[in-house]
């Protein structure tokens, strides 16, 4: 978010852009079915904003898309260094796509570090747009280039576009009352304009965005718009860019409806607000800031007019503690965090298991252990969610598969928590959280009814006929206990973390009762009704099943498509419910000769599957902080098929 430029000059109207557009016919226009673009620069260069804007233009144009923001944990890493490189990859197409793409067709490199950090991912023949102004001897030496890669022939296999982005931007803004340094900061908008021309993106949205972002500083808005238009015009006029590309809208990829682009954390936040409305309960979020979960706290804090209470606690433990207190009081209670925060919350999650109160624990997984890789993705908290507590403390686990799916997964986690009076883990990850895709906005009538009934009166008769309230007298179907909130006359009761007598809820150290309670809490979670897992096995001849969970859905599905396109038979299933597993999962697994489980960890789901179903599941693992690439996954699956 760094494209500020300060200026007092008035901005000329966009008539020039319009005229230039009419002349577009003089240049060659080619049609593509899909493109992968990566914007890369210093963490202060505004690459995330540039990527976000290009994404919005692309979404409003109607392409299918998938994004992968990738940035360092440092807010401003040392300028011009490899660790300071921030990038944003966008894949868009005229058909439905599943991943942000393996290898970029186009790299925009704002400095030598960005080139060096990303060139390895580029296939030969890809286009590279470099900001030549930044290729000074000193900047190149900083990242280990002895000779200029722009001149030493090392980029011969690529279509190199050397563009003095900084100079051109400063030149374009010379009418504005700006220092050179200030003007330079708009170079990301120049680059965005150039790319927007290359790919025929609509520009109104970005101009509107800039006007609204800098509504209080119209001069800055004008300067940024000028840089944006200058970039477009540069593409239009310079001979270096002889070709522009069209990617048609993905008209047939989407069911009819109204769509918007949405990131995982935003979808998850909306899912929580929707769950609160559908349950008719106020939403309470207790949270402590942590990457990559903080955006949910930020988003929910904006929606107080929905009755949403957000509490930024003194630490992770207080975050979940306050949420649990609110749950006791009858709120739909949520805590949001990432792996290290889950570790701190473990004892309170155990208390919630013992109290049998509804509570959502949202874990946006990141690289671990310990602080690990705060801004990178990983799926290595599955076993922590399953088992990371003292005693037998079963907790249901739900995992979204795509950014937009975070909305539905949040509603599903709330359904389980409210129906069964239990804490529930919602396991998202950094890739889903920050990545985005088109989302069909649901009609409110489609949303599930999550209303609950609080206990209102006595539920048990003692031997002498006295009517009493027993806080642990269970629903025979769900095994859920009654939710009796303070303020309800006659139902005064005490609950706690000490083992209690089944039914009455009074403290009990009786060995047989403890055995019974441990088994009952387990049976309650085991008995949660979850939909069967669906198997995608089009011709029914596959011998190999690939089983995934969470955010690997996109890459796994893309890999499976590749294999099928190449004539291979492979079946695919993807788990949303990791505890309990769907009832039919055992039968599904036994229907295949081989089960392959790709995970961004060292085989955590595979461990669970092997233990529960005695299936010789094969793990395929990657723990490098990045999502799987479809091609590499397809190759691994091919090996498994041929083996």
């Amino acid at each position, binding site marked *: 978010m760094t494209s500020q430029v300060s200026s007092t000059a008035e901005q000329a109207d966009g008539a020039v852009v319009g005229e230039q557009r009419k002349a577009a016919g003089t240049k060659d226009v080619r049609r593509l079915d899909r493109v992968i673009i990566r914007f890369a620069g210093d963490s202060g260069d505004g690459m995330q904003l540039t990527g976000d804007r290009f994404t919005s233009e692309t979404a409003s144009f109607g392409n299918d898309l998938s994004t992968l923001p990738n940035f360092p944990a440092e807010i401003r890493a040392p300028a011009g260094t490899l660790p300071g490189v921030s990038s944003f990859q966008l894949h868009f197409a005229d058909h439905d796509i599943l991943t942000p793409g393996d290898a970029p067709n186009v790299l925009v490199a704002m400095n030598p570090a960005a080139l060096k950090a990303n060139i390895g991912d580029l296939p030969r023949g890809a286009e590279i747009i470099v900001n030549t102004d930044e290729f000074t001897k000193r900047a190149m030496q900083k990242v280990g280039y002895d000779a200029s890669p722009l001149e030493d022939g090392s980029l011969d296999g690529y279509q190199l576009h050397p563009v003095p982005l900084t100079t051109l931007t400063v030149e374009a803004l010379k009418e504005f009352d700006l220092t050179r340094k200030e003007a330079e900061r708009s170079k990301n908008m120049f680059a965005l304009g150039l790319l927007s021309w290359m790919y025929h993106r609509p520009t109104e949205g970005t101009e509107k965005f800039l006007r609204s972002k800098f509504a209080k500083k119209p001069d800055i808005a004008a300067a940024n718009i000028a840089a944006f238009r200058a970039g477009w015009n540069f593409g239009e006029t310079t001979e270096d860019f002889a070709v522009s590309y069209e990617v048609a809208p993905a008209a047939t990829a989407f069911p009819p409806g109204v769509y918007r682009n949405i990131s995982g954390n935003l979808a998850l936040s909306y899912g929580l607000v929707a769950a609160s409305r559908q349950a008719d309960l106020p939403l309470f979020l207790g949270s402590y800031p942590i990457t990559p979960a903080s955006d949910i706290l930020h988003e929910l804090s904006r929606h107080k007019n929905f009755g949403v209470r957000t509490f930024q606690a003194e630490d992770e433990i*207080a975050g979940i503690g306050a949420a649990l207190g609110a749950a006791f009081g009858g709120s739909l209670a949520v805590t949001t965090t990432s792996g290290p925060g889950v570790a701190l919350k473990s004892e309170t999650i155990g208390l919630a298991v013992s109290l049998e109160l509804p509570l959502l624990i949202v874990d946006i997984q990141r690289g671990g252990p310990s602080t690990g890789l705060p801004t990178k993705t990983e799926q290595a908290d599955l076993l922590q969610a399953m088992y990371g507590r003292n005693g037998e403390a079963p907790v249901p686990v739900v995992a979204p598969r795509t950014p937009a799916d975070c909305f539905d997964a949040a509603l599903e986690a709330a359904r389980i928590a409210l129906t069964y009076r239990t804490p529930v883990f919602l396991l998202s990850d950094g890739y889903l959280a920050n990545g985005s895709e088109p989302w069909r906005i649901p009609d409110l009538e489609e949303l599930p009814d999550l209303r609950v009934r609080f206990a209102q009166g006595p539920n048990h008769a003692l031997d002498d006929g006295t009517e009493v309230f027993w806080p642990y007298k269970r629903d025979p179907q769900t095994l859920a206990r009654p939710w009796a909130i303070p303020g309800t006359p006659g139902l005064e009761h005490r609950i706690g973390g000490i083992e209690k007598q089944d039914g009455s809820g009074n403290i009990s150290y009786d060995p047989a009762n403890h055995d019974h309670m441990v088994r009952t809490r387990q049976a309650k979670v085991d008995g949660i009704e979850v939909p069967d897992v669906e198997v995608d096995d089009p011709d029914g001849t596959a011998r190999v099943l690939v089983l995934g969970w969470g955010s690997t859905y996109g890459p796994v599905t893309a890999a499976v498509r590749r294999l099928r396109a190449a004539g291979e038979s492979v079946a695919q299933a993807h788990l949303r419910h990791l505890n309990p597993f769907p009832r039919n999962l055992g039968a599904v697994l036994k229907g295949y000769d081989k089960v392959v489980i790709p995970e961004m960890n060292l085989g955590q789901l595979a461990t669970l599957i092997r233990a529960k179903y005695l299936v010789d599941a094969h793990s395929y693992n990657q723990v490098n902080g990045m999502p799987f690439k479809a091609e590499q996954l397809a190759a691994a699956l091919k090996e498994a098929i041929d083996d």
Partner: protein
Amino acid sequence: MTDANALLQLVPKAEGKQSMKDFKSDQEVRWCPGCGDYAVLAAVQGFMPQLGLARENIVFVSGIGCSSRFPYYMNTYGMHSIHGRAPAIATGLAASRRDLSVWVVTGDGDALSIGGNHLIHALRRNVNLKILLFNNRIYGLTKGQYSPTSEVGKITKSTPMGSLDAPFNPVSLALGAEASFVARTVDSDRKHLTEVLRQAADHPGTALVEIYQNCNIFNDGAFEVLKDRQQAEEAVIRLEHGEPIRFGAGGTSRSSEAESGGGCKGVVRDRLTGDLRVVTVTPENEAEILVHDAHSASPTTAFALSRLADPDTLHNTPIGVFRSVDRPVYDTLMADQLDAAIEQNGKGDLGALLAGGDTWTVVG
């Protein structure tokens, strides 16, 4: 304290007349015979009918430790939670349910060791909680290790050669954490305890009440000097808002105690350092005796009072309300923000929220 009534008005009143019996649960009390906790329980159960609040709108939340069993014995709503976390849990409850009277029961280990962070943050936020901190200067439930309020050199199972760390003074700590209400009382003084509870209940925001409580098993007689009638005259300073701070047997050197209305000792401010010290009251210095002002905007004098006591002998220990000031209450502010958001943006419309941002339509 009109504000106090305003917040208490949010909690529904009991319909009929209540008695102490109404607040006793059916659970057998399981503290050691002779434990000071019994006296506090009886005082609280006896005090609750004075409040006259609907029983179902009262919640006791505790952590872990002997005193934290307290909620089981109160016939109200209650939660016996985990070690140190009661203030955090109670914060979520109080912030989301302003129609409840929320009480936290905690001990010196629970509140000041494992839960120290939650305690100070609850105090600075000024959540509408009443925190009863049972201080027995020892770990009872784990059978007798020294606590964060134990005197230096305490010989216990975990410190056979004496404890090394300096203790917290809970009142000083609370004042440093921006507490708006801080008081200290003693388990055996039912009248004083009840009066302090009454003032705490009336206070809008977090009220911290330190209760000196005897553990007759692992730290018996820890507060004997404050309880023994003769010794107490010299040791205890009873703070009364608006009254000169005097204590000790007898009056000034030339008048009887009955006439002067105060003891032979008093607290004065040192002109040079600004600190407080104890002097023998004489007709010459009688006018200089500090008049207690619990409502002073500055916590400075309250803090100085909290430092008078000798941590080893407990001589010059003030009891009563050190500080009671009005300060914005967290849960009120939170509720106000929700109201303001609705006023500014209208009541949340989920359909409009979901359809916000740039959208496009796919026609079938």
